[in-house]
């Protein structure tokens, strides 16, 4: 069965710092890749997704992610974080109809 690994459990940054959150998955076939965000007290929302084509995908709120097939990775980036980006971030992989989520990375942005 496929698995999803998020290496950073808790990341603390100051405003304007750059962000990169790692995500690796174990499945070798065709996958659909997602990043979701969960703001405090809210439910999950989609940040961005990758199905095919350009491996650099852009999402909402200035986030982007790069799919590197050879590394089975889908890392999330943002050049300059804001206090409002404080949230938990989840990487997810879809294989056929099955969805697997990573354990999540909590991001705290200090003003």
């Amino acid at each position, binding site marked *: 069965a496929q698995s999803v690994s998020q290496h950073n459990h808790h990341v603390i940054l100051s405003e304007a710092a750059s962000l990169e959150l790692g995500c690796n998955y174990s499945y070798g076939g065709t996958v659909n890749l997602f990043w979701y965000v969960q703001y405090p007290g809210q*439910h*999950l929302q989609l940040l961005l997704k990758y199905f095919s084509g350009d491996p650099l995908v852009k999402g909402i709120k200035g986030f982007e992610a790069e799919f590197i097939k050879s590394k089975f990775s889908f890392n999330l980036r943002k050049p300059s974080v804001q206090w409002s980006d404080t949230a938990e971030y989840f990487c997810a992989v879809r294989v056929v109809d*099955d969805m697997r989520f990573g*354990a999540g990375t909590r991001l705290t942005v200090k003003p």
Partner: protein
Amino acid sequence: NAGVTQTPKFRVLKTGQSMTLLCAQDMNHEYMYWYRQDPGMGLRLIHYSVGEGTTAKGEVPDGYNVSRLKKQNFLLGLESAAPSQTSVYFCASSSLPGAPAEYEQFFGPGTRLTVL
């Protein structure tokens, strides 16, 4: 549109009691999912459905049952609750391949369940 709604929002059960969580969506989505979210473990898929009358097991199906009698509803049942089932439960739905926002999952607000 209400999107995805879940009933109830909170529930406390005693070990051995049963209950049903209701998920409803008004987006005419074919796919529906039940997840549990536990600290440090992210979301884990319990069961899912790819259409009315169908269900399938996810990553952690034991101790749960589901039914999808109507397209808009997806029920999660606990027949005999255990403390290990204390968690936050999220329902989600998504559209078919080829549709706008295909495979994007829309989540409900969650149900916080405590089993004593």
